[in-house]
């Protein structure tokens, strides 16, 4: 199993500039625009089981992609590259195998690495899904003022950079869930309470920002009292 790879930050898009106008929705677009997208989708779902990993690891497998892999072939392109990462991390396929096979399929000649001995993470979930029963008391309650910590996670995280360091108010307490930061790396489920925190747009983006309310789910470890 591969060691913890730091996220590149490529997926953390909230608040980014320079993306141009929003797309106009097409009510009649197909679920999969091209056949390969459906195949990539299905293989990505299966890759979690094949690699003995989980949904958080799959999300992280996309957060370590480079810019071209993440964006150039769209959503299912990054799913495919992410699935390959999971399969390589668990030694289901050796690095270079997919490329060599593609070359051979194109009529070229490339030597394909032998199938390695699988090396899946030493990990088993304590229950299905991500929600867990938790006896620990909730650290925060609805109405509490909190701040999203400013922290650079060593690996996976769901704490967006645009919320970090900003203060808000707990709007809802959600079911306890496994912590993606540790679960993605098979360290521990670390189940904890999750809070929907309400932020004022001008607290997040300054006094010139449009007036609106931003709500997002933050795991208890992401928050500190104010």
């Amino acid at each position: 199993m591969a060691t913890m790879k730091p996220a590149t930050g490529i997926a953390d898009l909230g608040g980014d500039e320079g993306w141009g106008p929003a797309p106009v929705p097409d009510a009649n677009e197909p679920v999969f625009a091209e056949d390969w997208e459906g195949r990539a989708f299905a293989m990505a779902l299966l890759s979690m089981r094949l690699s003995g990993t989980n949904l958080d690891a799959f999300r992280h497998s996309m957060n370590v992609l480079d810019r071209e892999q993440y964006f150039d072939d769209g959503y299912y392109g990054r799913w495919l590259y992410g699935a390959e990462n999971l399969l390589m991390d668990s030694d289901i396929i050796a690095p270079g195998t997919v490329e060599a096979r593609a070359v051979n399929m194109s009529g070229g000649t490339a030597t394909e690495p032998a199938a390695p001995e699988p090396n899946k993470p030493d990990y088993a979930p304590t229950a299905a899904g991500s929600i867990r029963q938790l006896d620990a008391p909730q650290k925060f309650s609805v109405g509490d003022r909190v701040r999203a910590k400013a922290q650079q996670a060593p690996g996976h995280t769901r704490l967006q950079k645009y919320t970090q360091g900003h203060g808000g108010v707990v709007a809802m307490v959600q079911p306890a869930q496994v912590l993606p930061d540790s679960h993605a790396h098979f360290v521990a489920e670390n189940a904890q309470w999750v809070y929907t925190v309400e932020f004022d747009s001008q607290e997040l983006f300054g006094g010139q920002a449009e007036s609106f309310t931003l709500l997002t789910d933050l795991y208890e470890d992401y928050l500190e009292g104010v």
Partner: protein
Amino acid sequence: MAEQLTVNDHIPIQLRTEALEQLLVERGLVDPAVMDGFIKTYESDVGPLNGATVVAKAWTDPEFKARLLEDGTSAVGELGFKGPQGEHIVVVENSDAVHNVVVCTLCSCYPWPLLGLPPSWYKDPSYRARVVKEPRTVLAEMGLDLDSATDVRVWDSSSEVRFFVLPQRPSGTEDLSEQQLAELVTRDAMVGVAEVSG
């Protein structure tokens, strides 16, 4: 195949996908029929019609609507809607005063059991980056002009909770049946980038 490649070439994504599938099938790790089943499920069975059914029922059955807003997961489960990406559903209601809109800035989390797989605009970097920073501008670009007095609430899905928007019932639809109402409800209205028109 159009072009003979070498290992130094960029592999087109379509070929790359075929190569991975061929490898996994050859090694007995993946059954193409299982893949076909996943694809068919989301092409044909699980899509926005599920969500539209929920909305139409909420518009016509006040007790269901109350349960839906109180415990979305259990209320949509009554109609048989559950499964991957539907572990915990929270329903937020639009009104004259409040407009809710949903995004996932970190990937593209979406309530699959109610809406199927996300449309391309939802996965677009521009939508993901900007709707949390300038939602009124983004919604206007997408065709929805909101009154400046409307309270805009943007929900960024970052845990396994999935948010679902209950749109406003359009006026002049008092005589329509639940089935007819469901036909009016669009995917985009249930994410909050459109309103339902009568």
